[in-house]
């Protein structure tokens, strides 16, 4: 399973729709300070069902919706879609026949959220389970945020066991 495509619109500094294709192998994202690189990772964590605004560097979840700039007005909705390419037999149980799975998350200014898997409305829990079953949660050890690389070493020995447990 890989992230085949990511579409972001209205999420943080991505007010206009952008679409990124990521092939297998080593993909790199570059750009000046403050241009929106870490926001791409926030978008991926968000669509995977991340529940906490604080770990997306915001105060409330509404902070993920584009809040305006000198030239643009704030908008009312953030939406991120993630298209996963799944190899034969790797998809979780209920998506056995799919070679691609599309996951979408939307948030409106009024606080309403919508979640979709393959364009069918579902709950946040369904999305979280989809990723958990394929060995990848929003808080997985394999997503390392900016400045967080040493967190696993600076943690207490008891906290480090989570790394082993995830692999068990």
């Amino acid at each position, binding site marked *: 399973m890989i992230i085949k495509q990511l579409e972001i619109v209205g999420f943080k500094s991505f007010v206009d729709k952008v679409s990124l294709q990521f092939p297998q*192998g080593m993909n790199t994202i570059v750009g000046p300070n403050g241009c929106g690189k870490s926001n791409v990772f926030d978008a991926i964590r968000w669509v995977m069902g991340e529940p906490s605004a604080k770990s997306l560097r915001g105060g409330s979840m509404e902070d993920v919706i584009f809040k305006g700039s000198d030239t643009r007005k704030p908008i009312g909705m953030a939406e991120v879609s993630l298209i996963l390419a799944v190899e034969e037999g790797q998809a979780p149980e209920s998506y056995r026949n799919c070679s691609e799975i599309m996951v979408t998350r939307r948030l409106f200014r009024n606080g309403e959220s919508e979640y979709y898997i393959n364009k069918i409305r579902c709950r946040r829990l369904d999305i979280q389970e989809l990723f958990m079953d394929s060995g990848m949660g929003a808080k997985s050890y394999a997503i390392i945020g900016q400045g967080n690389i040493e967190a696993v070493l600076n943690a207490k020995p008891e906290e480090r066991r989570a790394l082993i447990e995830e692999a068990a």
Partner: protein
Amino acid sequence: TCRRFADAFEKINEQFKKVLPRLFCGGKGELCLTDEKNLLETGIEVTVQPPGKKLQGLDLLSGGEKALTAIALIFSTFMVRPSPFCLMDEVDAPLDDANTDRFNSLIKELAKKSQFIIITHNKRTMEVCDTLYGVTMEESGVSKLVSVRLTDFK
């Protein structure tokens, strides 16, 4: 679950003993359980001996040595139970050129089977990637994508 925990620990430790000397170009690394009798609550101790130095606790390691040790631990877990993709946001910032090159060559190897997405400012890392995306804010406050010709960096 204890059985599986002990098994995963054994395998990750096996990998850690191999990955650490590869990243440090020598030296030794090892994981050990703080309480072997109680697998449900035991912690994990990490000991590292950079090449030519005495065995020491994590506190005395330098900034770059700590980052490299953490990367070795993450990659060892990745080798035992590969997650579908791996996202790393500027983890190469504290590394010098030689360690950056070793880090990149390990990623290239792991990227044969898994997908990596790396955010970096380091030109050496940009040079070895397969796909390069540029993000820009030509219009202040609005992020857009730019197609970056790989030839600019190679």
